């Protein structure tokens, strides 16, 4: 591999007969070329951007494969199982915690050639293969008169399988929920190569819900190949609202009351003062205050009723549609990492969730501890997802470390995770665990971590599925 330094170098080699076997099944959809191995050496874990700029790549697989159907995934997994070779499943590579990095070498299985879609209109369901691109699916559904309602910021580059594997949620989650609320059934290839189908019944009382084992499993229990997702009729009406508040408490309390009354806006986002300045600097009326944007959508009579509830409950100055339109236009403009990483700025986001009762405490504690790390330029946050029971805070930090960027990065992460646990929050709301958060999962889950390990060991005796991910 020419002049690139591999950070997580593995000694595992791929036996030549294994490679021949893979080629005999997949033909030219197997590669060991440098450019391919290099292209699958990372996901979108932000610290690796700094590595890349210095000519370092996180890890190298020994082969990349592109199966076209479940049968081929099975074949690949069976070969890997027989030979105890690590398997890493790859979707869009937009994960931000290193969950897809092939740190033990092995085989990367890219799912993006599996992208068939079948609509079941009568049952408001779509059957879709795991490698299907997110925006591709949403556009397909829109043309047919439906929406999935799932709009993560990674909508454009990510895949449906990736959404399920990382337990993703989207910007419109307050109405439509996270991906776990949309998955009705799924199909997965297990570590020894058999296929399990968890059928898309409307509901079933057939023991524990085993599909949830795979939602958020980040490739450690098998490969998700297909899913059945709930869909909604394309919204008849959309209403855009925004408000300026003097304090974060005031804005959070307003949303709490709205949700208690049963209104379910699709989008609610509350920005702290720094983020209000950052995102809405063009709007004088909100500069230096707390901005809240709300989108209601669905049946016109229902959204009109929700609008009335919001207007009754929101304590703050109503600002109309313009802030929301600005957000809609700019919500996928991912620019900062590209602009600032080459200038030496370490930049990342950390999302955690908390009950209403401790929301403000968590916000203030995390801002303070992350800001206290030497080298930090700023820390800011917005509340991005809301539930009757609590809220998700999405923190952004940036810093210019004097020494090693990775050390600074880990220091900020450590204080953030430690403080979240102390206050009583969940260490991840929707980005998952990956490699970055692995060491904190045990503390968050308690005894449940041992349960997870036992499940992993029972399903994956040879530990071939994304080994070391999530710290299990």
């Amino acid at each position, binding site marked *: 591999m*020419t*002049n*690139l330094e591999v950070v997580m170098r593995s000694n595992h080699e791929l036996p030549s007969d294994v490679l021949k076997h893979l080629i005999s099944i997949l033909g030219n959809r197997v590669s060991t*070329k*440098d*450019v*391919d191995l*290099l*292209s699958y050496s990372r996901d*979108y874990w932000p610290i690796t*951007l700094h590595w*890349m*700029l210095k*000519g370092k790549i996180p890890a190298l697989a020994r082969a990349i494969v*592109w199966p076209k159907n479940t049968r081929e995934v099975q074949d690949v997994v069976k070969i890997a199982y027989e030979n105890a070779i690590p398997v890493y499943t*790859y979707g*869009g*590579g*937009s994960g931000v915690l290193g969950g897809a990095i092939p740190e033990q070498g092995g085989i990367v299985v*890219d799912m*993006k*050639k599996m*992208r068939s879609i079948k609509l079941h209109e009568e049952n408001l369901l779509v059957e879709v293969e795991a*490698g299907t*691109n*997110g*925006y*591709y699916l949403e*556009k*397909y559904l829109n*043309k047919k008169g439906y929406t999935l309602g799932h709009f993560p910021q*990674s*909508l*454009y*580059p990510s895949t449906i399988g990736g959404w399920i594997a990382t337990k993703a949620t989207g910007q419109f989650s307050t109405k439509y929920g996270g991906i776990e609320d949309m998955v009705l059934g799924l199909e997965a290839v297990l570590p020894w190569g058999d296929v399990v189908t968890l059928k898309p019944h409307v509901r079933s009382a057939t023991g524990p819900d085993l599909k949830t084992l795979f939602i958020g499993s980040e490739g450690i229990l098998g490969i998700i190949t297909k899913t059945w997702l709930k869909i909604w009729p394309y919204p008849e009406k959309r209403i855009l609202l925004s408000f300026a508040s003097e304090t974060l408490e005031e804005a959070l309390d307003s949303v709490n009351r709205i949700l208690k009354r049963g209104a379910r806006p699709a989008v609610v986002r509350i920005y702290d003062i*720094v983020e209000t*300045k*950052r995102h809405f*600097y*063009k709007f*004088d009326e909100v*500069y230096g205050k707390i901005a809240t944007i709300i989108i209601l959508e669905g049946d016109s009579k229902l959204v009109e009723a929700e609008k009335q509830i919001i207007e009754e409950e929101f304590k703050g100055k109503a600002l109309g549609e313009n802030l929301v339109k600005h957000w809609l236009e700019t919500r*996928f*403009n*991912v*620019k900062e*990492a*590209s*602009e*600032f*990483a*080459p*200038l*030496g*700025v370490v930049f990342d986001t950390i999302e955690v969730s908390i009950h209403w009762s401790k929301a403000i405490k968590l916000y203030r504690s995390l801002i303070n501890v992350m800001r206290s790390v030497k*080298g930090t*330029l*700023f820390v800011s946050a917005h509340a991005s997802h809301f539930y009757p029971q609590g809220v998700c805070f999405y923190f952004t930090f940036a810093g*210019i470390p*004097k020494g090693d960027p990775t050390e600074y990065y880990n220091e900020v992460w450590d204080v953030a995770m430690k403080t979240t646990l102390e206050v009583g929050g969940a260490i991840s709301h929707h980005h998952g665990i990956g490699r970055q958060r692995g060491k904190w999962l045990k503390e968050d889950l308690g005894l449940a971590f041992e349960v997870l390990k036992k499940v992993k060991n029972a399903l994956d005796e040879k530990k071939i599925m994304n080994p070391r991910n999530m710290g299990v």
Partner: protein
Amino acid sequence: MPRKWDWLKDEIKGLELIRSAPLIFKFISGKLNGPDDLVKCALCPNMCRHACPISIVDGKETTSPAGKARIAFFIRDGKLELNLENIEPLYMCLSCDACTQWCPFEFSVSNLTRPIKEEAVKKGITFKEFSEVFKNLKEYGYVYGEPKDEKMVRDGNILYLRGCTIREKYPEVEKKTSKVLESLGYKPFTTSEKCCGIPAYNLGNITLFKKLAKEQAEIINSSGADVVVTSCPSCAYAYRVLYPKYSIKINPKIFHITEFLEGKIKGLKTKGRVTFHDPCKLAIGLKRPELLEKLLLSIEGLEVKSPRRKGKETFCCGYGGSAISRLNAQLADEISNERLKELREEAEVIVTACPTCKLAFESNYGKTLDIAELLYDVLRG
């Protein structure tokens, strides 16, 4: 009104000045350009992946837009060798520029990676599959080899430039385009035109592109025409967008046929149902995403069904960019079939306005009419 980075200035105030901090101040004050475009693209999580036909159909990280930028960055940085294996992914690009529509910086991945291709060509590192194109363009100024003996129309008041694919594959489109123009009172004439040079440009042979462009500019400028109409949106794009970048001047006004017909087609009636495919060089390159649909909708009685991806979200036919159909014909046809499947959900008959798109679809058994063919049929009743 506060400015874009005022919030950051507020936050940084009072912080200890450390390494790179002065750079940040300069950057947010607009006194520093920051990283170059290739680096910015390489650092992106592929926010245009969904729009890239290669990415959707090929499905590989290696040929994804940011994936290509990363490879180009590593080659430029000396971390990866400049060899055929490493540059092949850079040629897996249709040059449709769909990526530009979704990029906050409006980058064209095709443009960002072209310098690496140019360097490779200069060093003689080129695929054997390209040598015939280069030879044909050098010897005949024509991608298809020695041109057939062509009958020219010497007199007229507008110059009709057909483009290589119309000349070689679709002489009937040439005739029908002329008839449509004549029905509007124009007298088109033709000349011994050359290739606009786009195939050489796409493949990174800039020396050859510039040679062809200069020769073609001379032919056009000496024709005496004030107005030029072409059936090929890539040619129109070359004359209007690329030539000026290389200081090559074309004197007459250049129109793609759809642009020339805009507002001139009136009172036409027909029956039937069609769908349409917006050529990327018309919708994105020439920035006329709505034009083909608008022309079709002006025909009374014609049922026009919109495809899922149209206008600026159009999906390349698979034969664009000059490289993929030569290096990986199977992938080109897969992309074509992906698009055809979507179009066929709307109507049996597809209308487009690019000879390459017509060729791509017809090579994959998709019934496709050039807009001029449709108009000719409607005019004849």
